[in-house]
């Protein structure tokens, strides 16, 4: 388990123990955290699991694949700290990660 903190747009904070190997997106879906739609189911084919990663975590995350950056062009209000949460696989290294969920996904 690794602790992932999801800050939702309604200013609520959800600290969740997510099983290693799941994605940050799946951690949110399984725990009914609002704001992540994940329409394509984790296939990097939509941009509805878009999150903003807390700045200090940006460099600690695995680099984006090309497809992820392309999809982020389609995200709602993308920023420099935008990631697709379906591409972030939970591991010991991600223990303590904090993400903000945008006000909407589309």
């Amino acid at each position: 388990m690794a602790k992932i903190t999801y800050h939702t747009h309604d200013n609520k904070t959800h600290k969740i123990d997510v099983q290693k190997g799941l994605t940050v997106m799946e951690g949110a879906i399984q725990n009914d955290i609002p704001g992540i739609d994940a329409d394509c189911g984790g296939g990097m084919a939509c941009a509805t699991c878009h999150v903003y990663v807390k700045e200090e975590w940006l460099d600690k995350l695995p680099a984006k694949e090309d497809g992820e950056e392309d999809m982020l062009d389609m995200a709602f209000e993308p920023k420099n700290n935008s990631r697709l949460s379906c591409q972030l696989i939970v591991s010991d290294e991600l223990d303590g990660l904090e993400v903000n969920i945008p006000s909407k996904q589309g």
Partner: protein
Amino acid sequence: MNKTDVLIIGAGPTGLFCAHQLGIIGLSCEIVDNLDKAGGQCIELYPDKPIYDIPAVPECTGEELTNNLLKQIKPFNIKFHLNERVEELKKNQNRWHVKTSGGVEFDVAAIVIAGGVGSFEPRKFSVKECEKFEGGSLFYSIKDKSIFKDKTISIFGGGDSALDWAIELSNVSTVNLIHRRDGFSGVESSVQKVKELNDQGKLNLFTKYQMDSLSGDKQIESVKIKHDEGEIKEIKSDYVLGFFGLIMQLGPILDWGLNINKKTVEVNTKNFETNVSGIFAIGDICSYPGKLKLILSGFHEGALAARGCFKYAKPDEKLRFEFTTTSKAAQERLGIKK
């Protein structure tokens, strides 16, 4: 009024295969889709990406899969209604009366919703005042390009649509192309062309900028764009175009009295019927314990839903289980001559 046994909503792989299954058991159907072509997510999201988990097909692209499914249902001469979104359903005694966005009407015995994650709609700008100008001087798709002649157009986006239109309109208009990063997702040749046009002064490229605000009374007059580092530029614009791809919205399906759970429709696993008799849901849009969002699951669901439709379409007949290898009736329906 189009009278047919079953209306399929959604021309993705699941909807197409369900049409095949209906045809095999002797039911007629017509298909409605919001997009301008069949294929659904396979065509819209990943036409060129290989799929490796279609049974007995080691590798095929979304486009190949779609073309093969269309070939497979060819014998049934199924009528497609593209660019149409189903808006209204009304129960009319034992049948359903259905109406689309374009006013096409259907009289059907059963409905199969194979709508993926909903209908594809253009992704819009997040800036609030955009709504006010939408359809007048701000567009997410182009129907009549002649209105842009000799005007100043600001195009936002970095994919093929944004690049293609920037290149094309640069011949007759002053074009600003604004994109949030230096990289583009469009094809490399278009990216090169855009950079060339920018170097020649035939197009103004702004990268690492996003829309900040719009101003104008009835029509857009200028658009403010903001750089990653905070700098704001104001550029004169007669028109603004946004190409951010498509997003899927459930839309009117929400109003049909179906049990909806997290953007999906709950079904039973016996025949994939919803809580409303005569309305079935298959593919990505349906949910049940253990649901897998795989194309192959959609095929299975479509086969069972088709049989579930039978009692509504032919209440006085009994459906017999048959194999296509040996069933004369099925082979006749497929137009196979021996």
